[in-house]
């Protein structure tokens, strides 16, 4: 549009329509406020954690911040990693079952149960993990360390309580299962009928059709769903805090009584008694968790962008 005609006939000049202006104002405000909030959180974390980087650091027997946060960051990533290994295949399996194998009634029942699972508060999962699952898993851990102790993952003496990092990870896996399942289900439902029929018409079995048409189409959606689940696992506080007694170790052993803790649960457990330097240290670990989450998200986006087809193609 050139400006000349508009200037010549002022009647054509766009009138500001109130609804448009108000709506634009509201949505712009909402968009900016999310950025502002995120920025404020980041500033809060940075400012409050500065004292933790000072020379006279002394929290829980560690002499500098890295020594303190290292095991916690490790525990956070390790527990989430274990949870994802368990949750993602199961979630994909459930989503495929719901969308492609189950009779309609059964499918909607399962979908309902999964959604219910998402509504259970994490404290309840924590109680279940500490009081039920731990006891249930205890004999299994004893067996694993007796018979498979030569594998580093099961080395040493088994936990006497069953409250191990593996128990915590199983609880995490159950907690992230609903979100990954629900999102994968939505993606699988959108598989173009065209491609499903193409493979069936070639003589594909149902499973082959899933491999040829459904999974390639859903790949990027599965990654996104997993990232959302992972975000929840990284930040999960109560369930881990109730299952694991915190200790500052870096250990890959799944069955031991001495387990690394996670950043979020450590903050929850230590904050009530913390004072002075330790408060700053805890906030600084929060900053580290914030950074880990951003890194994980970035990594996922990079993975998605690298795959030429999933970058938004049909």
């Amino acid at each position, binding site marked *: 549009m050139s400006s000349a005609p508009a200037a010549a006939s002022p009647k054509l000049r766009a009138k500001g329509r109130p609804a448009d202006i108000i709506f634009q104002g509201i949505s712009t405000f909402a968009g900016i406020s999310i950025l502002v909030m995120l920025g404020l959180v980041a500033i809060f974390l940075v400012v409050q954690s500065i004292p933790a980087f000072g020379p006279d650091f002394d929290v829980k027997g560690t002499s500098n911040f890295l020594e303190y946060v290292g095991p916690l960051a490790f525990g956070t990533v390790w527990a989430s990693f274990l949870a994802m290994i368990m949750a993602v295949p199961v979630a994909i399996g459930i989503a495929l079952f719901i969308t492609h194998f189950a009779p309609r009634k059964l499918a909607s029942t399962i979908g309902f149960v999964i959604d219910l699972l998402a509504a259970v508060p994490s404290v309840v999962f924590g109680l279940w993990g500490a009081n039920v699952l731990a006891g249930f898993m205890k004999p299994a851990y004893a067996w694993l360390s007796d018979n498979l102790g030569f594998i580093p993952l099961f080395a040493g003496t088994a936990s006497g309580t069953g409250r191990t990092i593996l128990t915590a990870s199983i609880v995490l896996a159950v907690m992230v299962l609903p979100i990954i399942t629900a999102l994968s289900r939505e993606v699988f439902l959108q598989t173009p009928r065209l491609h499903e029929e*193409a*493979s069936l*018409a*070639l*003589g594909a*079995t149902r499973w082959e059709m899933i491999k040829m048409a459904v999974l390639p189409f859903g790949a990027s959606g599965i990654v996104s769903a997993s990232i959302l689940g992972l975000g929840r696992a990284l930040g999960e506080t109560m369930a881990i805090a109730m299952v694991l007694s915190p200790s500052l170790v870096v250990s890959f052993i799944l069955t031991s009584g001495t387990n690394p803790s996670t950043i979020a649960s450590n903050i929850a457990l230590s904050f009530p008694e913390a004072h002075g330097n330790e408060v700053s240290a805890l906030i600084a670990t929060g900053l580290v968790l914030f950074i880990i989450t951003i890194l994980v998200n970035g990594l996922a986006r990079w993975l998605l962008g690298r795959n030429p*087809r999933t970058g938004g*193609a*049909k």
Partner: protein
Amino acid sequence: MSKRIEAKDLNVYYGDFLAVEGVTMNIEPRSVTALIGPSGCGKSTFIRTLNRMHEVIPGAHVKGQVLLDGDNLYGDGVDPVLVRRQVGMVFQRPNPFPTMSIRDNVLAGVKLNNRRIAKSDAEALVEKSLRGANLWNEVKDRLELPGSGLSGGQQQRLCIARAIAVSPEVLLMDEPCSALDPISTLAIEDLIGELKQEYTIVIVTHNMQQASRVSDSTAFFNIAGTGKPGKLIEYDETTKMFSNPNEKSTEDYVSGRFG
């Protein structure tokens, strides 16, 4: 290769709804049979019962028989997966697998059911199938590129190459040209003329000229009104159907004097 199809008193249902009623017809091997008729008269429904693709839709089922050289496709213990290996299908919209290269698209059906194929055999089969679909010269330098990068007409010929790579007995085509431009349409029509040397071909088309150009026999389906079942009205040699049909409604339809 190439087998005779006999439909015997075939009824097709979607749940309780009778969509196609009482079709009995013999389809000769190495011939092209066109199915014509107004929208909603059950052409797609009928053609999909010839390789049991209608079963993809929950509740769809048939009564009656479809014999492929005398073997009932709906007999006890007949596996629809194996039926579809013998009776290939090309769809209205070209549907190459978007994640696969042109080569892998051609080989997609061949590698199913855990079948392995030596690399040199695979190369030969890719060339043979693409030549068979009149596509080889256009894509031989870019077999590694995704099939979705081709034009619509090329994609449709890729789908034909994919279908004939598994050496079916019968090739079903449901309006294969309706999403294509006239030039691509002519390319596919030429191809159909060549393919009938080897395959039994059944094609649904809305285009009367196309039916009269490519087919040996023509079947006219019609429907008495919405909610009524579609029926086979007349089935004869194409020349007869277009010049001097027995039924008044056939004549009205082929001459364009029809809704």
